[in-house]
């Protein structure tokens, strides 16, 4: 009997915690599809021969094939198809911006919702994690040693791909815990840390060594890794760097902090827990400045600490760079959007404690070089918001530690490491990828870069054997 696709125009909705419940806890917001929902959603896939969805995936997951397995109820087979090209399925199913990647190209999206590819990926990964205990086998070593700097999505992907091919990989991590932005940046309620640790443990099963507390550029240099420690290639996936602040008066007052600091205290140091050894401010009213995913994460964390939260963003709701789903979640949770406003000054009391943020209204003018309409101040429209905390979520500039200690490593105008299409830098056998190259971007793009570099490293080192 010929297969008949489910022609419902709507995606199966994602079961979630109620907004007024979840904005008081740090538990995961989205609860994941049930088996029935997954089977139903999988039937919406048209199994297009030319697989338009795949062109949107930076790691080229074989999407129609894994969905076909889901529809057949063969969830482990579906997992094997995803994990053949993606080293972090449970992570990607949660944090990928599917609407601008795979789901953007889904034919079903032309009329109605695209297939919930991300939700299905998450279902499959969670099913595997809950039901399959098999540990990955350590492959036979090919004798080649590779160093990976940074244990975020780029580094973990590069390490995983190489380890599966038999490379002896050591990942060097500056912090005390592996995972990079997945542990210090993305909150528990979007990506439970137990999932990240499971992925990291999976790499250890493959024989990857994780060396925490090692700051490359300080504890050891890239050159020493190669000349003294005998690594034949190095992949730099050290991530984004120094947080940017606005140059407005009052930016150093007490209660002004970067989103990086705020999120690190909460996510890495667990400062929201009552018995934590790490302090965090418990603000009453917060202005989060910025409109990206990091701004949404910071705002939603502040809400969970009990604050009233404003997002202050200089363009409009339509221009918010954050994922639509994150913006919707934030609105549902009671975050107040003050769009088309820009801070001009932060005010404080005599002890430098923040009391107000002064903003000016903006309007959108002609498109600028980036193609986005340029925000322009409306003269005389200044107003003040009472806040006791300001969180700056304005992006980052690249970390200077590795470039300043690695001679001959070419850096672009913005401070990112220059690489070719294979991820190779200006230094022989030194590769790079992720935010260290592109500046702040997404988890999946970093994974794609880690994958590209792993392939290139494999090709370069296996030539030595020939």
């Amino acid at each position: 009997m010929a297969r008949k696709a489910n022609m419902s125009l709507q995606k199966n909705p994602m079961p979630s915690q109620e907004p007024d419940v979840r904005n008081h806890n740090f538990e995961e917001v989205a609860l994941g599809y049930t088996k029935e929902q997954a089977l139903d959603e999988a039937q919406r896939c048209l199994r297009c021969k030319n697989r338009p969805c795949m062109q949107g995936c930076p790691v080229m997951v074989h999407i129609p094939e894994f969905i076909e397995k889901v529809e057949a109820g063969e969830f482990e087979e579906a997992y094997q198809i995803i994990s053949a090209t993606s080293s972090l399925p449970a992570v990607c199913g949660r944090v990928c911006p599917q609407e601008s990647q795979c789901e953007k190209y889904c034919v079903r999206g032309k009329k109605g919702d695209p297939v919930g590819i991300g939700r299905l990926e998450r279902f499959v990964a969670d099913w595997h994690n809950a039901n399959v205990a098999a540990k990955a086998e350590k492959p036979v070593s090919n004798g080649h040693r590779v160093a990976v700097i940074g244990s975020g999505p780029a580094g973990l992907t590069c390490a995983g791909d190489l380890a599966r091919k038999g490379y002896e990989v050591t990942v060097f991590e500056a912090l005390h815990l592996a995972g990079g932005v997945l542990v210090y940046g993305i909150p528990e309620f979007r990506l439970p840390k137990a999932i990240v640790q499971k992925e990291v443990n999976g790499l250890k099963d493959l024989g990857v060594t994780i060396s925490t507390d090692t700051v490359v550029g300080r504890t050891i240099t890239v050159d020493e890794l190669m000349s003294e420690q005998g690594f034949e290639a190095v992949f730099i996936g050290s991530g984004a760097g120094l947080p940017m602040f606005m140059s407005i008066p009052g930016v150093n007052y007490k209660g002004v902090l970067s989103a990086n600091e705020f999120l690190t205290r909460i996510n890495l140091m667990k400062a929201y827990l009552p018995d934590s050894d790490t302090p965090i401010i418990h603000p009453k009213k917060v202005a989060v400045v910025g409109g990206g995913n990091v701004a949404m994460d910071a705002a939603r964390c502040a809400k969970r600490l009990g604050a009233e939260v404003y997002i202050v963003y200089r363009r409009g709701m339509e221009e918010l760079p954050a994922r639509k789903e994150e913006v919707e979640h934030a609105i549902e949770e009671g975050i107040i959007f003050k769009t088309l406003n820009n801070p001009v000054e932060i005010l404080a009391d005599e002890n430098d404690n923040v009391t107000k943020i002064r903003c000016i209204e903006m309007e959108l003018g002609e498109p600028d070089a980036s193609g986005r309409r340029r925000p322009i101040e409306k003269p005389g429209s200044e107003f003040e918001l009472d806040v006791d905390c300001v969180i700056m979520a304005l992006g980052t500039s690249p970390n200077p530690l590795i470039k300043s200690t690695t001679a001959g490593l070419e850096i672009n105008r913005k401070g990112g490491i220059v690489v070719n299409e294979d991820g190779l830098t200006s230094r022989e056998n030194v590769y790079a990828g992720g935010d260290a190259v592109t500046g702040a971007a997404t988890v999946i793009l970093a994974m794609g870069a880690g994958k590209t570099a792993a392939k290139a490293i494999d090709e370069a080192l296996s030539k030595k054997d020939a």
Partner: protein
Amino acid sequence: MYKIVRKEELRPTVTLYEIEAPLVAKKAQPGQFIILRVDEGGERVPITINSYDPEKGTVTIIVQTVGATTEKLKAMKAGDFLQDFVGPLGRASETAGKKKVCVVGGGVGCAIAYPVLKKFHDDGAEVHAVVGFKSKDLVILEDEFRKASDVLKICTDDGSYGQKGLVTDALKELIDAGNRYDEVFAVGPMVMMKFVSKTTEPYGIKTTVSMSPIMIDGTGMCGGCRLSVGGEMKFACVDGPDFDGHQVDWDIAVKRNQMYHDWEVKKHEETCNLLRKGA
């Protein structure tokens, strides 16, 4: 895990720990710091390095018991292990090419001042030192300072040892006596470093201070350690910790360091209570 190979109580509230950390010991330079965590779940605490032995693979820190983490640290013994010990962080102090310098240390800041002073001395400078403590029973590293400096002035707040008064008074006396320093290097409480800078400013003597602001990662990620220096934003972990004392915006720096003060006091009390119960 990082083994405490030696623990020595220098004073009732000041303790020396020698930690096994070969990679850190190999790279450490005067003026740099480490970040440690005492246990799983512990906070990340930046502490400046006192000395290092690359051959033995150890790093020595001298810590004043001031809060929850330092209290927990004090409860540990030689042979115990620290959860984390990462470094060396920050840039090394610049000591080369100086003919005559004065190093000013305040309290446990002397533990940090010492390696810098010794490096100035080893690099061939004439080294004067002014070290200040609350009272005689808090004086540390006196022999070490004496050996590596040409002139040593010890000050105590209560006059129980050395000369009575502040380090800034002693420093001013040295300058007024005709000593022409290429550089004054100050390490201690922020308020002390501020007033050392104010003291030298009218004389136009280059003054370097070692800042210890709030910090989490120590690698240039969190931005907690930012300072206003000469009107520009600087990050102590990657740009410092040494800065031009005449350029630092002290009022903001001093206040920012108090950001978690109430919480820290409360946490310290709780930890003391817990440790007492456990004892």
